[in-house]
């Protein structure tokens, strides 16, 4: 899974019907030091994450598993809202 920050939201009325009712949030991937890294993406959301929240998301096939039993077409889903990060890089 990957760390990210919710930076926006997308609305699309005309879309694949399996996406109906799904929240589409724009996520900026971040490093453990909360620095932006990599491309911004649109994720479905399984946790009710709000704007600005630090989250972690899962990608590829597993992203759709997060929304079962709904059969959602997605390749990225937010699966957790981070309360706290402990980071100690020096070995």
């Amino acid at each position: 899974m990957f760390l990210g920050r919710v930076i926006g939201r997308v609305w699309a009325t005309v879309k694949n019907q399996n996406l109906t009712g799904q929240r589409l949030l724009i996520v900026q991937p971040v490093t453990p030091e909360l620095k932006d890294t990599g491309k911004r993406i649109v994720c479905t959301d399984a946790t009710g994450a709000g704007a600005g929240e630090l989250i972690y998301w899962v990608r590829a096939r597993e992203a759709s598993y997060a929304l079962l039993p709904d059969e959602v077409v997605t390749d990225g889903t937010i699966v957790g809202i981070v309360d706290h990060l402990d980071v100690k890089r020096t070995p």
Partner: protein
Amino acid sequence: MQIGRVIGSVVATRKHPSHEGLKLLLVQPLNLDGTDRGDAVVAVDALDAGVGDRVLLTNEGFCAGSSVGRWPATPIDAAVLGVIEEIELLPDVRGQR
């Protein structure tokens, strides 16, 4: 799999049910010379790997989910599969990434 180093952990109370009770570690993938290789990932851990440990990391969902007994069809795509004691390299490879 990749070689990584545990650099921390993630605390998240609001998360997908299949993640309940699982340790979430921050793992930094490494090159052979120990330098960072790409970004750190959030991985589930069933081995109680500690911060600073070098570990075997998978980024594939089936391995990850089944390694913590959460299979099939759980939204998990990374896991620590082993704690590395030693790495041996051919002499002409040492120091290379």
